[in-house]
């Protein structure tokens, strides 16, 4: 145990790991800040580059990119009203009005401090609760994993935007993409059309790069002629009175962020929106009103989305289930490095867990340093014309897609997904559920079939198992509750209750 705990501070004193974590955080801030370059895309591209690295170096880089990337999106949200990442959508609501008042520097400073606070809360939760969840998770059966997958897939409701049907379609499409290849249980071909390339399946990182990176790059072609916005950046360090004033709100938002981040399939974007909603509901007599530059509307989502990073690592490291899209990519990296994230990780490779905890803490320290510096340089990079950014994104995406298995076919897939994703986005289809489906589909398929085989293909026994076991029962109830809470009937009931 003590030996494993030694890994907690490994990256803090190893100059090479220190450098990699710092570089990852810095890269994450800048990549996350550029609209069209998502954290998921950055992580998926970078992970493909680290396949030959030792696992510690790879994890150090990824942790830095993750922490920096989730935060980085806030900068463009505040300065230009363009969230650099989905987790910064809520930040733009009050951040941009603050910038319009000439308080961009102070808003970025406050965002940085509260993001670090949120990040630390998330890491503490990871350190103290992950082992408990891990002990508990060892008792999970196939049907329980199926239920976890089903709970995760419910996120489609939150990701669907205006049309639930479009979100469901996207989710189904993702599941189908995840099914391509030889069935891992029977080696039967699924959607392979006799192609040897397709028999190996479509790596989900290729789908992610295509649907997120290339599709977004193509979408930005419409905005080529838009002029780069200029912004005055003066005060950076936030006022102590503001930190004191919003401290408890940030703590509460961090709690929300940690819990939402820990739920399979949810990440910083949902956490930030829920925390914003919470701040809006609990702040009495907001002055200025929310949406017009209230700092509480800036603090809550930023604390929450960075807390969600630590939270997202809990199910990833203990259950092998992605907390969000980035942790899904990280899971892929761990497998490639010969590790098995899941219930056995803490017993077989505990040092890796403590290394991750310590490394995330270090990344937050770098976030504080880099977040409060380089604002002026940053604005110059963001003001880089889209005509330069778009071709570069395409080249980087091609490099990332090829590097996974050195297979040129993956570059074609990436482009295909990119064009399809662009058209889907153009007609209002969300692409996030596709990735959710690609990630959760194969897991749900395998566990459903194992559970069904366990029940000897008897539907009655299969369903009875869901309520006869305590863990399954709790998860079944949670699933039903979450499903009901997404129905219009439930929303009407809650609204009526609030009114009375």
């Amino acid at each position, binding site marked *: 145990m003590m030996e494993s705990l030694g890994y907690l501070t490994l990256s803090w004193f190893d100059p090479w790991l220190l450098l990699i974590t710092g570089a990852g955080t810095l890269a994450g801030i800048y990549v996350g800040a550029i609209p069209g370059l998502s954290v998921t895309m950055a992580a998926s591209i970078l992970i493909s580059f680290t396949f030959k690295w030792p696992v510690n170096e790879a994890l150090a880089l990824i942790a830095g990119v993750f922490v920096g990337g989730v935060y980085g999106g806030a900068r463009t949200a505040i300065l230009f009203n363009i969230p650099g990442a989905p987790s910064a959508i809520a930040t733009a609501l009050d951040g941009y009005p603050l910038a319009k008042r000439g308080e961009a520097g102070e808003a970025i400073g406050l965002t940085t401090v509260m993001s670090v606070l949120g990040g630390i809360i998330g890491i503490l939760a990871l350190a103290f609760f992950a082992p408990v969840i891990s002990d508990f998770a060892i008792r999970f059966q196939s049907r329980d994993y199926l239920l976890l997958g089903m709970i995760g897939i419910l996120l489609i409701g939150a990701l669907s935007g205006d*049309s639930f049907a479009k979100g469901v379609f996207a989710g189904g499409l993702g599941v189908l993409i995840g099914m391509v290849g030889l069935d891992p249980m029977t080696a039967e*071909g699924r959607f392979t059309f006799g192609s040897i390339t397709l028999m190996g399946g479509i790596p989900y990182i290729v789908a992610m790069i295509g649907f997120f990176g290339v599709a977004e790059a193509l979408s930005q072609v419409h905005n080529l002629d838009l002029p780069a916005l200029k912004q005055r950046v003066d005060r950076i360090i936030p006022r102590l009175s503001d930190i004191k004033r919003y401290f408890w709100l940030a703590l509460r938002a961090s709690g929300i962020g940690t819990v939402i981040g820990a739920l399979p399939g949810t990440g910083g974007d949902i956490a930030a929106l829920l925390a914003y909603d919470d701040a809006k509901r609990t702040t009495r007599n907001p002055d200025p009103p929310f949406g017009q530059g209230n700092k509480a509307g800036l603090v809550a989502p930023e604390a929450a989305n960075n807390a969600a990073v630590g939270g997202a690592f809990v199910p990833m490291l203990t259950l092998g289930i992605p907390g969000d899209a980035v942790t899904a990519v990280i899971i892929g990296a761990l497998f490639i490095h010969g590790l098995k994230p899941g219930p056995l990780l803490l017993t077989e490779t505990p040092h890796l867990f403590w290394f991750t905890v310590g490394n995330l803490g270090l990344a937050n320290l770098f976030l504080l340093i880099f977040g409060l510096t380089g604002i002026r340089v940053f604005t110059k990079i963001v003001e880089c014309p889209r005509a330069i950014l778009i071709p570069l994104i395409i080249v980087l995406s091609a490099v990332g897609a090829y590097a996974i298995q*050195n297979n040129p076919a993956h570059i074609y897939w990436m482009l295909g997904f990119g064009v399809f994703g662009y*058209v889907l986005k153009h007609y209002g289809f969300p692409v996030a559920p596709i990735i959710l489906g690609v990630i959760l*589909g194969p897991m749900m398929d395998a566990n459903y*079939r194992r559970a069904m085989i366990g029940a000897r293909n008897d539907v009655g026994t299969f369903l009875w198992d869901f309520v006869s076991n305590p863990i399954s029962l709790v998860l079944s109830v949670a699933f039903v509750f979450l499903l009901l809470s997404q129905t219009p009937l439930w929303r009407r009931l809650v609204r009526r209750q609030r009114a009375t």
Partner: protein
Amino acid sequence: MTAQSVRIRGEATFAILLVVFAALAFWQSHAISGFSGLSEPGVFPMLASATMLVSSLFVLRGVLRKDLPAPASGSTLRDFLAEALPARLVMMVALVLAYVIALPLFGFVAASALFLFSAFWVMWRRGPLVALVLSAASLGGIYLIFRTLFQVVLPRGTLFPGLF
């Protein structure tokens, strides 16, 4: 946020294409193992494609309920292409397509240099010299970081092996 009440041009055509796509996906899913058992490899694909089919029908219904957009070319397919793939985007997609085809033939360095140069030249419109300098600098940076520093394997050309 309220849903749009007027169709985007080509939206109905796209919705119909999605219904057809979902139906084909269901047909292919059924071909895996049919309805032969509850734990067969085709069960989940059938479930997913059936969900796609039902949801695409809902999407189509929603689109058909919207008001028609202002008349454009008169051809639904042409409207769809004009709306979803305008000329500049088609040019960009064509460039990217040429790039991904050229990658395994010419190798990463040559194909990327050609792609970056053409894309900068066409999209930024600052002249060939600026595009040349910019593409050389950015490609040099990418090569240095990814190949030299990170040791990433980049596509090698089959036409001129050993050159790039």
